[in-house]
């Protein structure tokens, strides 16, 4: 139901959004590699942030896996002035990442809506197949060689989906004030 072009487009849209939004600074190294199954080897403490983008013909779940370990905390809480708890900071990052995907998808699907993020235990991931996804892709995401995250894109289609995304345009910085 999801064409090869559409699968490739979802993949590129995710990569572009993750590259743009998961690192705190644009200069940080962000390596994204596909993995077979993100639920393999998760510890009991591994958590996931779930976000949904809904349209008339599909729903897309963006699942970002994280361990609240020292390196991850240190990376995302490096701004000492920011006194918010880790999860709040990380949820905002995930929200921005999903928002970037939503923005990109709006070019091809005019009616879209996005949910707020919710945190679950990673042990729920093996049950993703029960949603009968037409596309289930997992990726490992490494920031600056130390922060290890993972991501899963799960797309459930309710009608044939075929589109070719043009992800060549440079990502615009959003949510930041530009002073001239």
């Amino acid at each position, binding site marked *: 139901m999801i064409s090869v072009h559409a699968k490739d487009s979802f993949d590129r849209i995710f990569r572009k959004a993750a590259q743009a939004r998961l690192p705190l600074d644009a200069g940080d190294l962000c390596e994204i590699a596909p993995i077979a199954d993100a639920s393999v080897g998760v510890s009991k403490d591994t958590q996931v942030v*779930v*976000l*949904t*983008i*809904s*349209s*008339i013909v599909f*729903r897309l*779940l963006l699942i970002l896996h994280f361990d609240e370990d020292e390196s991850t905390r240190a990376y995302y809480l490096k701004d000492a002035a920011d006194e918010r708890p880790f999860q709040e900071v990380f949820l905002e990052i995930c929200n921005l990442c999903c928002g970037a995907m939503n923005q990109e998808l709006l070019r091809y699907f*005019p*009616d*879209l*809506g*996005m*949910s*707020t993020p*919710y945190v*679950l*235990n990673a*042990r*729920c*991931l*093996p*049950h*993703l197949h*029960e*949603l009968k996804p037409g596309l289930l892709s997992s990726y490992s995401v490494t920031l600056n060689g130390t922060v290890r995250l993972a991501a899963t894109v799960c797309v459930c289609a309710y009608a044939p989906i075929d589109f070719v995304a043009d992800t060549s345009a440079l990502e615009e910085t959003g949510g930041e004030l530009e002073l001239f």
Partner: protein
Amino acid sequence: MIQQYVLAVAASSAVTALLAFAAHKLHSAKLTARLHAKAQARIDTLEAAQAGHGAAIAERERAEQELQALTTQLRDELALQTANAEELRAALKAATEDKDQLAHQAQKIAGEAERLKSLGATFERWHEQMISLMTQNNDMHAKNQELSSIVRHVVIVSLNASIEAARAGPAGRGFAVVASEVRALAARSEELSKSYRDSLHRNDLTTTSTFQDIQAGGKMIAASLASVESLANQFHSKLHEVAV
């Protein structure tokens, strides 16, 4: 002599008179011929002019006829145009009435879309139910974890009981059977607890994905309604501009 002289004079006078008469006649004849030629030329000119006038009159008559035909045609066309103008005026009036009706309907659609946007609150209310369900799920997770911890403890206790029964020898044989039974029950409980934990995780995922779909769907509908409202307002403004 005198008589001769008189006669000569008389004769010469008569000759002179005759000559003068002849000259006069000749002159008169010449003048008459010249006047006649002039008159003839004038007559020819006048005749030519009259012929020209005749042609001009004929031309004018033809032009007058054409003009009359044109006037008749123009009169007919004017009558037709007047009829058309009447029709157009009636059509314009009808169009103006239609436009007012359309503007009214566009305003109504915009108002309705604006009102329906509050449907988003309903979807958010449904989504809030997810938090309540997930709180219950988390509570069940905690209870299951506690159960799992008790089961693990029972397994250890049953193992200890088996060891103690073995130490007691033949006297502890019955106790060993009970300890083994307890261990088997603990193992089954552990399996059940794991299965229950899996069910809870599946429940977490299903609940979250369903309620997030509801929430995102609500936002999608609200955005679509906002778009309908904006289009209806644009349509209304355009109709307003046309009126001005």
